[in-house]
């Protein structure tokens, strides 16, 4: 089971809280997913609507760990200030650190990410950086104190799955003791299973569940898939090979020609 900065959770699924058709479906999807972590954001509060206070009343009922994000931040300063505000609001040192470099692909600004991760770690934050599978950047993130890495599978919201299996496998091999989470890009449960089969500790998703025709059923499917993948990894799968090898014994076969 995944361990995040000393806190062990019973589920390898982390779920976002955005884009659901209704608060009721959000709650039912969380129940079906058995997710142990909910990601949230901070946005301007409506003075008359007080929509943030209403949203929080729904989220606190979920009774899961809260992981605030810095979504939408394009600079180190913005991301650090957002993290500071989120810490006061949610009373947690956890922060899903996003520093976006490219507006079309939402590719992280890897340089800004390392700088922001360092500043936040020095201020007592426990940083979950949204990164890519770049080994050098990930090493830098670990060097500045990150104990969790969250490489994308594919760009946020695309549902393309794991675009770089080789890179993700290399990352797992390079950092055997770091908690690794696939964050973003998953579309169907088999993507989650595949990530877990690679030895990843958890998967974080939102759009694939919230925008499915039946979010609750999709949440349940992702939960089962993540569990299947995790069990398969522990069970030590066979290596693929190119030549066939019969599974039925050849010895004792009757001669019938």
């Amino acid at each position, binding site marked *: 089971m995944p361990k995040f900065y000393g806190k062990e959770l019973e589920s390898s699924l982390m779920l976002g809280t955005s884009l659901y058709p209704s608060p009721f479906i959000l709650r039912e999807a969380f129940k079906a997913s058995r997710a142990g972590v909910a990601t949230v954001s901070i946005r301007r*509060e409506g003075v008359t609507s007080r929509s943030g206070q209403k949203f929080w009343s729904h989220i606190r009922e979920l009774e899961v760990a809260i992981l605030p994000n810095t979504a939408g931040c394009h600079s180190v300063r913005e991301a650090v200030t957002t993290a500071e505000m989120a810490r006061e609001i949610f009373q947690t040192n956890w922060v899903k650190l996003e520093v976006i470099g490219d507006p079309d692909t939402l590719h992280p600004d890897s340089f800004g990410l390392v700088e922001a991760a360092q500043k936040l770690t020095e201020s007592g934050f426990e940083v979950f950086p949204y990164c890519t599978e770049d080994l050098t950047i990930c090493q830098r993130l670990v060097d500045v104190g990150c104990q969790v890495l969250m490489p994308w599978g594919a760009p946020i919201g695309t549902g393309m799955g794991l675009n770089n299996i080789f890179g993700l496998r290399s990352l797992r091999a390079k950092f055997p003791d770091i908690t690794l989470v696939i964050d973003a890009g998953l579309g169907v449960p088999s993507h989650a299973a595949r990530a877990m089969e690679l030895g990843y500790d958890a998967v974080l998703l939102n759009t694939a569940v919230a925008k499915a025709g039946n979010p609750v059923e999709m949440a349940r499917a992702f939960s089962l898939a993540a569990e299947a993948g995790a069990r398969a990894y522990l069970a030590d799968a066979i290596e693929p090979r190119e030549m066939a090898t019969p599974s039925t014994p050849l010895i004792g076969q009757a001669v019938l020609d």
Partner: protein
Amino acid sequence: MTIMMNGESYEFDGVTLSDLLAELQLINARIAVAVNGDFVCRAERNTLVVEAGDRVEIVAPQAGG
């Protein structure tokens, strides 16, 4: 005086950030505040003097992925 509050002009005649939050009935709400891009922690709200033209951002929990 006129300040910018969450991106809109706002007429404010109080003194401190706490005065502003009280006026908006947000003193006990689950919010955080930044003034001119700098985070202002809860403990500093009583002493931070709001000045004309200040950009005040008041944020709260929202959905996120």
